[in-house]
């Protein structure tokens, strides 16, 4: 079973410490949600897991399938089975969704077998159409430039499409609900649920509880000031929905200051 283990993670951006000793273990087949107020380090966690060069790990470990993730480049992490659905997907003008995805899939095949000739184009098209149908996307989408001029909803759907095509073992969804109307939220969530299962571990990062109405977590963690301060079941999210974050702040910021 693939396991992502984060131990006592400390992360800084330009000498400012953002994550201050975060620990979390995610197994394949589990859905975890991390919730927390803005500026608490949720996206820093997501970017650090993927290996963004602006984030420096000063202490702690990330282990995935027994491998030290911190030694891997972002592309190696991806090929190992880690996926990040970006909060703000980046536009790549001039590169079509299809060309991009085919390059990504072929990179996986070539890493496994340097002699690989790449996925046959017909197989690729068939696969892509199936995934687009699942996400109720027009097939013309494959010919558009990646994230270039996409609406908020299209961007998030394109992220889930990539997730479906790349078949990760651990997926991190960074504020995937932001900027989505209720219909898009439902379609994206259905996509994630269709992919969830015993082979996929999911980490949902969200500010709001509403996404968790669609993607049911097994575990909910509350993050504050660079650490996980509370962990519980799905009911913890509902509690937050009703009570807001103030009680968490009161409970932990006071102890931090004490």
């Amino acid at each position, binding site marked *: 079973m693939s396991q992502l283990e984060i131990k006592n993670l400390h992360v800084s951006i330009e000498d400012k410490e953002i994550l201050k000793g975060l620990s979390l273990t995610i197994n394949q087949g589990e859905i975890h949600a991390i919730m927390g107020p803005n500026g608490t380090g949720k996206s820093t966690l997501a970017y650090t897991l*993927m*290996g*963004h*060069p602006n984030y420096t790990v000063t202490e702690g470990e990330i282990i995935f399938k027994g491998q030290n993730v911190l030694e891997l*480049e*972002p*592309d190696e*992490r*991806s*090929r190992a089975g880690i996926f*990040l659905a*970006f909060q703000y*997907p*980046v*536009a*790549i*003008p*001039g*590169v079509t969704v299809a*060309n*991009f995805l085919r*390059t*990504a899939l072929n*990179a*996986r095949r070539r*890493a496994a077998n340097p002699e690989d000739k790449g996925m046959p184009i017909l197989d690729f098209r068939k696969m892509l159409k199936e995934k687009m149908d699942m996400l109720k996307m027009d097939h013309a989408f494959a010919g558009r*430039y990646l994230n270039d001029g996409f609406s908020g909803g299209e961007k998030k759907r394109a992220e889930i499409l*990539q997730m479906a095509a*790349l078949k990760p073992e651990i997926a991190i969804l960074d504020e995937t609900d932001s900027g989505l109307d209720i219909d898009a939220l439902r379609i994206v969530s259905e996509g994630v649920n269709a992919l969830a299962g015993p082979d996929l571990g999911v980490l949902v990062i969200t500010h709001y509880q509403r996404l968790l109405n669609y993607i049911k977590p097994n575990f909910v963690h509350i993050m504050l000031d660079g650490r996980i301060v509370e962990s519980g079941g799905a009911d913890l999210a509902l509690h937050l929905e009703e009570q807001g974050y103030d009680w968490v702040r009161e409970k932990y910021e006071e102890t931090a200051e004490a």
Partner: protein
Amino acid sequence: MQEKPKVSVTRTRRDSAAKEFPFTVDSIPAGGLKDVRVRAWEAFKKFSMPINTDEAWRRTDIRLLPASDFKIPQEGAFEDLPVVPDYLLRPLTGEQHGGQITLLPGGSRVDLDPVLVSKGVIFTDIRTAEREYPELLNKLIGTVVKPEDGKFAALASALAQNGILLYVPKNVVVETPLHSILWGPGVDLAHFSHLIVCVEDGASVTYVHEAASPDEIGHAMHAGIVEIYVGKDASLRFVELQSWGRHVWNFSHERAHVERGGNLDWIFGAVGSRLTKNFSDLDLAGEGSQGRMSGFYFTDGTQHLDHDTQQNHLAPHTTSDLLFKGALKGKSRSVWQGMIYVAPGAQKTDGYQANRNLVLDDQARADSIPGLEILADDVRCTHGATVGKLEKEPLFYLKSRGIPQTDAERLVVEGFFDPIMQRIPFEGVRERFQQAIKDKLSA
């Protein structure tokens, strides 16, 4: 036209011009163009070597051009030089071509579909044209590009041993594209070429010309002229590819004259040479004529490519659309200097020019200088110039999907060029350039 501002010289530099060429009036080849060539030689003698106080040469330094070392290839010189590689001879425009010409140092090979011959299409090398079509050749030569246009134009006009005459008679539609290759191997050689393309009223043709040579140690040069005439309601699609070896100094003067209702689709691709200075002018001379100029270039190492373009709207209701895109690696440098000129009375013209550059290394440099000179009052002219770098975030995004750094860079660069590739309807040409991108990125 307004007078260009004069550049005043405030200090003199020793050795500020390149050495002179060793050629004399006796270097002029014999044949039916002798008189034209002698006149061009007279013009040549009046030009001194360009120096970087000349406005057009301010950003392109040719002081190291070893002009005095160059020789003109002897008859049959190609027999002792590297042969033209097969991939250059393959059609770039679909399954087959209607004709192919290979120009070699001191020789040439010509092949033309007999059906086109029977329609009166002429597609031959300039030596054959001098023998077989002297009247037509003399009528066309020097009408669009004149020896007085510049030192290298005069030199090529006087000495061009190699060249092409493409003539498409009135209302003849050539369905299969024509293809020519100028293969210029060898060191210490000066290759000269003169291309003459005349598409008569109502005719149409697609023509691909490629100049190439292997990389060699030493120096070589090429000076070329391209003269294009597009008649009334005629249509020409002209693709020029330049993949000279890295030892080649490349100079060209090119101009297209488009008559009423004519249409020119002009595509440039440049990946080779040590240094290139190219002048390409589009003269929209007839009412309602249209021209599109699309350029791509990719430099690396210490290459220096300088494209000087001019879109001249000389008649009303003319449309021009220029897009040049370039990527630069290593310590290479590119210059694009463009001008849209609208003549008095050329009302309702629509002119567009844009130059976009992607600088991949800190030491590479792209200069982009757009210009407008508008002497009519009811026109629409727009321009844009950008120089950008390879950004971190798109690369991280691609890498986060398992794409290794080099492939991620290649995708971004290919994406950058895509708007130009969309303008090129030939898979073969696109593939050639994509291969060049791959080679240069992995070099």
